[in-house]
């Protein structure tokens, strides 16, 4: 095989970075609700696709896809808070939340299929075709937007948890909710807030999915494995974890595809993951 060009190397790196950012964005809410509220929310993927379909629908009646955020974010925030209220009302354990959210996934999937059919949907927008040239490399706007969103949200959550009173209180809840409550932390309110945020992140991820991908209800499950891997590798409840881990997985897969047979890509990235787990004391 001829030596691959630098352009190929650079372009593949970028490609891995961008897909990793999407893993990170999809994983952010999942990781926070799992790590801090002990809710393993399988429905996060279904919510993201619901967000994508809603964006598609709003865009098809003439709304700018980015402007849909103004509707998507509050709607999904309420949805997430409502879901948390339900889980808290029945004090559902982490294990059981898996089952509840799986049921919810099935319902949302059916809802999507009922409204939009199982046939493929593709959002047409002015953004899809915009790309920038940097030297010999190209960067597409939807992907750049995804990366920017993933970075901004992850960093914001990180700063919120680290530097604000509410964020610190949130961390206290994650450590030990009853003790935090005894110290006067508003556990109920903050948990509702965090669940709302996690769900809103799913909505944002949905927007990014709609910008770059063709949608079908069955795709809900296509992201499950790799995003779960990124979430667990990144460390539960750590806001920067899924993004960093997602990028590690994305870039290692992209480089494998660039330089060897693409079909071997999962082997490299997941072997790497196994080695990291076995050798390093903690997570990435």
């Amino acid at each position, binding site marked *: 095989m001829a030596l691959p060009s630098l352009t*190929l190397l650079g372009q593949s790196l970028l490609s891995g970075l961008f897909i990793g950012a999407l893993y990170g964005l999809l994983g952010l809410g999942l990781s926070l609700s799992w790590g801090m509220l002990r809710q393993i929310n399988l429905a996060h993927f279904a919510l993201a696709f619901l967000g994508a379909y809603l964006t598609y629908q709003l865009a098809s009646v003439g709304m700018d896809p980015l402007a849909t955020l103004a509707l998507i974010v509050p709607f999904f925030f309420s949805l997430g808070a409502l879901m948390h209220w339900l889980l808290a009302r029945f004090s559902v354990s982490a294990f059981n939340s898996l089952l509840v959210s799986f049921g919810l996934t099935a319902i949302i999937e059916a809802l999507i299929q009922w409204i939009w059919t199982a046939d493929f949907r593709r959002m047409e927008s002015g953004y899809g075709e915009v790309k920038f040239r940097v030297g010999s490399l190209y960067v597409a706007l939807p992907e750049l937007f995804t990366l920017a969103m993933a970075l901004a949200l992850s960093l914001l959550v990180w700063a919120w948890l680290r530097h604000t009173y509410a964020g610190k209180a949130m961390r206290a809840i994650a450590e030990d909710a009853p003790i935090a409550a005894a110290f006067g932390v508003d556990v109920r309110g903050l948990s509702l807030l965090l669940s709302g945020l996690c769900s809103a992140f799913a909505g944002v991820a949905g927007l990014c999915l709609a910008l770059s991908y063709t949608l079908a209800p069955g795709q809900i499950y296509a992201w499950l494995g790799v995003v779960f891997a990124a979430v667990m590798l990144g460390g539960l409840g750590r806001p920067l974890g899924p993004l960093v881990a997602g990028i590690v997985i994305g870039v290692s897969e992209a480089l494998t595809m660039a330089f060897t*047979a*693409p079909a071997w890509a999962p082997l490299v990235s997941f072997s790497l993951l196994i080695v990291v787990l076995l050798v390093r004391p903690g997570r990435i």
Partner: protein
Amino acid sequence: MSIAIRSILAGALFALGLAAQSALAAPSGPPVRIGSTLALTGPLAATGLVHKIVGEIYVEQLNRKNGLLGRPVEWVLKDDQSRPDLARTLYEQLITVDKVDLIMGPYATANILSAMGVAQRYNKLLIHHTFGTPSLAKYEMQFPAGGLAGDPDNTIPKLVFDSLAASAKPPKSVAVVTSKFPSVHFISLGAREAAKKRGLREAAFLEWDFGNRDFGPIAARLKDAKPDFVWVGGLGLEGNLLIDAMRKIDYMPPLHFHLFPAPGPLLKAPGGENALAATTFEEHPPFTDNPVAAEFIRLYHERGAKAGLPDNSVENQSAISYSSWQTLEAAVTGARSLDDKAIAQWLKSNGVDAIVGRLRWDGPFNYIYGTDLYKVKQNQKGKWVIVWPKEFAAPGARLITP
């Protein structure tokens, strides 16, 4: 006359017409029950829906005419949720519990194979349309109605490379990229062989895992390899993902062929212009000269719109689905019996003129001997038109080479 009154009158006339028609030849007696499963939910549901609509249209058409052998037809449809193990058990349910008279195949290779095993055990005839690996069909009473030959890994590459050779600018180098999905993969390997035999330079050969999400690196490798022609062995959305990835790095190969794409999205995708694909049927002459096909197209548009399909034009999937029902009707009528063996015997010695062309079962594995019914189509100005072979090409259409 106001529009409302006019439409009421029209409706009344239509109803009268229907009543008159059914009075002419109303099927009577206990219904003939035809059982099948389709992937109505799960990952294959997008195409499953197409087959459901076509089946409903056909059964209604049958009942409006004389039914089957003068008896009304009832279609017992179950959802196999895109899972082969479920398909197998549901076919057993259809045969041993629901006791249907006849069965029809489900959608896609793995599920059809499951159904075929059951059919074989109960000596039931199985007509199916989307079985991509003929050499696995080892049951004498299975009849593919999808228009494939027994060796699609030879016939389809031959068709495609013939069309390219006859074009204004035949490619000199080729890149074969393919998913490792079984039915797509082996045809792509055939394309690789065919290209070699024709002396085309292989600029790249890449395989990816079905379910791959990141096509950026593959696009970048194609950009580096600069082939004149790219053979994309993609299933469903994979071809779209690859085109998207190539667009993002400002690259499109001069020519690209997609094996089994999801037709709607590929038609609308930016970058999908001039994409080539394989098909058996498109909405233009000579196909639409057939009044049966024209009527089917009308009904399908109507039903598709009602079901909320984003793209309700008739093309390969819906046409082979319709053809498989035509096969069933022709065979039952021809054999004048619901006996599976009699019907199979009739099919063995007769052909059926379906909307996709003349179906025969004289080749290996009951597939068509020699050549298949596939044609090469191209996305020209947002419409799929057949460009090869010439006698099936849309009026005035030629393979556009940039």
